[in-house]
């Protein structure tokens, strides 16, 4: 009863803001230099996450595969940047077709210029919004590479990534964030990409790991990280860049951005602590890999919620996210026996699912009047809406990724040969080594 009253009280300012928003939108959109500077810098921060991810993953593989692993993330920056300008952006954010995809009217960014697009962000140039969204498309594709590290053939990887970004990421971004997208119309809350970025990449990673099969010797030979300081540096860069990811998703330098900034840091910190303590109790030792993994799990979990929840809720989302992800990678993965090399699924798929559902629990219009209340703020329906978003993302990502892999395998071999894999991918596939032994 009390929760319902709180919910009703929160609705009043929402209605007021909605009406004032309509009146305001009638004015010609005007660029705000503060917002523009903020969003452009945030885009640069998000870009930095992908080289950070390259280090995060690169440190966790064996030394013979470090360059091929770093290559996955790095070359995706180049590949998706070009795809996005040519046709990716218009598919994801172009004028709506059937609530499923953008049409091709912004092909090659024609018509996307310095003037704002009020459908997305009324106070910054449309190009700034496009650039910010590009960085999300890049990191999402790169996240998947954690699942197939140490065994994917490079040519197949390139074709897979291009197809995946085009027919998995671009439509999903349209559904959740595009004007007219059906999940957005349904009221699914995803502030910075729990479904679009983390569930999509994590689940696709799991499917790729299953289709490719386990690495040779998996479960019999030790496959231990070769350079954990890389991984920690990478986690640090991810943490840093994530402020751009979440706070920047406010698309303005305002209070909502500040809230997203604070809850992002809080959840990362809480999850680092909870993962560390859980493994300490479960395995007897607190590890730096655990602390770094926990911080990333917390960042993933808070991502969809970051524009809708309070810092106190972020503590809970982070604490629970760290524990869930720890058990996903240490217990569930071993029980089910799949080889998700660097736990893209365990951290991003599971963490993203938790975050998307947690948004349906902890969201409050007191933080963001344009959002909605969650279960704990008197609106159980939001949890159901979030659940629909989660199930849809899982199903779409899994099925389409599977189809893409099968199609690519008709044209080229997906997996490295046994000789290449045993030698490590760096030398046979790229002709270079990370570490020279005699010089």
């Amino acid at each position, binding site marked *: 009863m009390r929760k319902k009253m709180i919910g009703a009280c929160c609705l009043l300012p929402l209605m007021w803001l909605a009406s004032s928003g309509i009146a305001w939108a009638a004015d010609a959109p005007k660029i705000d230099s503060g917002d523009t500077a903020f969003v452009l810098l945030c885009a640069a921060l998000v870009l930095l996450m992908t080289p950070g991810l390259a280090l995060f993953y690169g440190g966790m593989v064996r030394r013979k595969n470090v360059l091929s692993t770093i290559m996955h993330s790095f070359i995706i920056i180049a590949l998706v940047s070009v795809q996005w300008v040519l046709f990716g952006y218009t598919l994801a954010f172009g004028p709506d077709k059937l609530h499923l995809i953008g049409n091709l009217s912004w092909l090659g960014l024609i018509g996307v210029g310095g003037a704002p697009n009020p459908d997305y962000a009324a106070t910054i140039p449309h190009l700034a919004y496009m650039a910010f969204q590009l960085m999300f498309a890049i990191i999402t594709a790169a996240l998947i590479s954690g699942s197939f590290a140490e065994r994917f053939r490079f040519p197949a990887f390139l074709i897979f990534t291009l197809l995946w970004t085009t027919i998995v990421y671009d439509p999903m971004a349209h559904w959740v964030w595009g004007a007219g997208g059906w999940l957005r119309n349904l009221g699914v809350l995803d502030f910075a990409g729990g479904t679009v970025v983390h569930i999509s990449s994590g689940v696709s990673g799991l499917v790729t790991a299953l289709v490719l099969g386990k690495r040779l010797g998996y479960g019999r030979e*030790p*496959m*231990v*990280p070769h350079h954990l300081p890389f991984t920690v540096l990478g986690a640090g860069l991810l943490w840093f860049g994530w402020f751009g990811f979440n706070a920047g998703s406010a698309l303005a330098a305002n209070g909502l951005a500040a809230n997203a900034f604070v809850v992002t840091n809080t959840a990362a910190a809480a999850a680092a602590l909870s993962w560390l303590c859980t*493994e300490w109790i*479960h*395995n007897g*030792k607190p*590890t730096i*890999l*655990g602390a770094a*993994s926990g911080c990333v799990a917390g960042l993933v979990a808070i991502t969809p919620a970051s524009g809708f929840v309070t810092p106190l809720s972020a503590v809970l989302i982070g604490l629970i996210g760290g524990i869930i992800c*720890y*058990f996903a*990678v*240490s*217990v569930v*993965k*071993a029980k089910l026996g799949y080889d998700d090399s660097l*736990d893209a699924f*365990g951290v991003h798929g599971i963490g993203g699912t938790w975050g998307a559902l947690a948004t349906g629990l902890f969201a409050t219009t007191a933080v963001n009047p344009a959002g909605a209340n969650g279960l704990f703020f008197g609106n159980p329906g939001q949890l159901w809406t979030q659940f629909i978003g989660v199930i849809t993302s899982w199903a779409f990502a899994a099925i389409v990724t599977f189809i893409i892999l099968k199609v690519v395998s008709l044209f080229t071999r997906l997996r490295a040969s046994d000789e290449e894999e045993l030698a490590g991918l760096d030398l046979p596939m790229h002709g270079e080594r990370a570490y020279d032994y005699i010089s």
Partner: protein
Amino acid sequence: MTKIECVIRPEKLDAVMDALGQFGNPGMTVSEVKGCGLQRGWKEVYRGVESTIKLLSKIKIEVVVKDETVDQAVQLICRAARTGEVGDGKIFLYPVADVVRIRTGETGESAIY
């Protein structure tokens, strides 16, 4: 002439080098090596997944001495490298046919030091 090849605990390297230095032989070759033996491996846990590491890190020292000083050198190394626990390492002795100092072309015992 005899080549002494000993595999020791990494933390005992300084002690063994000091001991051989007191004995008056400054020349040796040191390598970082991996190996297995009675000591067995150990477990490492990454993200909750246990891995058994079978190969342990050791230090290998190779030093060539005159035949009359072999026993003394071996004793010095044993004293310096011993902890009494499993894993202290091993010493191997090999006869050396000849030694050549590359700079001068000297051969035999005078080329050792």
